[in-house]
């Protein structure tokens, strides 16, 4: 997994790429939670370059979503790749996470 983060209109945007599996999901979890600790509006996770995500990667996203909710922050997914969407649908989480194609789409929806 490769990981990048940047600021975007008060959000921390976390860009993940490659395979998000048990070998790196603990790191992804830490980074999402650290971003939530350190943002104004919330965290957006860009999954457009993710080739594979397993249930441990999904668990990191769920924990981010729940932590954001508890702290009155926003959380959402951006540009979910087909591979990641297949797993979200299997977990029936595709209707739980706010999902937008681009960051601009998300900002317009806020």
């Amino acid at each position: 997994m490769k990981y990048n983060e940047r600021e975007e209109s008060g959000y921390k945007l976390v860009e993940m790429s490659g395979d998000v599996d048990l070998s790196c999901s603990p790191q992804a979890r830490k980074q999402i939670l650290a971003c939530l600790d350190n943002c104004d509006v919330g965290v957006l996770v860009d999954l457009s370059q993710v080739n594979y995500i397993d249930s441990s990667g999904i668990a990191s996203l769920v924990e981010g979503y729940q932590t954001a909710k508890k702290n009155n922050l926003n959380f959402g997914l951006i540009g979910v790749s087909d591979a990641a969407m297949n797993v979200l649908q299997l977990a029936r989480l595709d209707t739980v996470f706010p999902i937008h194609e681009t960051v601009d789409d998300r900002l317009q929806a806020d």
Partner: protein
Amino acid sequence: MQPNIDQELLFNLKLPAEADRLALVRSVVQRAIENAGCDNELAQKIVIAVNEACMNIIQHAYKDIKKGEFELELTRDKDSLYFRLIDHAPHIDLEKVKPRDLDDIRPGGLGIHFINEIMDDFKIGHLDNDKGNYMEMRINID
């Protein structure tokens, strides 16, 4: 847990129970099942299920053990693929290996749900000695 004599062995892998071996498992499974005639959509799903089964061994069965190994075998009998996993970890609590209610939004516990959704059937059990567990998953690829 021996494969039926009529089944064709497609591969047998023995690996350290470490998270950084999962990419190799996915790659081998993907190649083998595509060679066996799976279309890409089904192959992707099968890879998800097998990855989760291996992950359960690494994350849960060997949770308190520093070093361990597991075996993954794929055989084919007509239109069915059989994935068999064996570990040598302490016996797991079989009652805990069940799909959970997905309306309960929380991290964790999704692996068995994925396996249950994707595979046609699966069974788990203990090996006959005082250690070790097995899982067998079957899927029809016709």
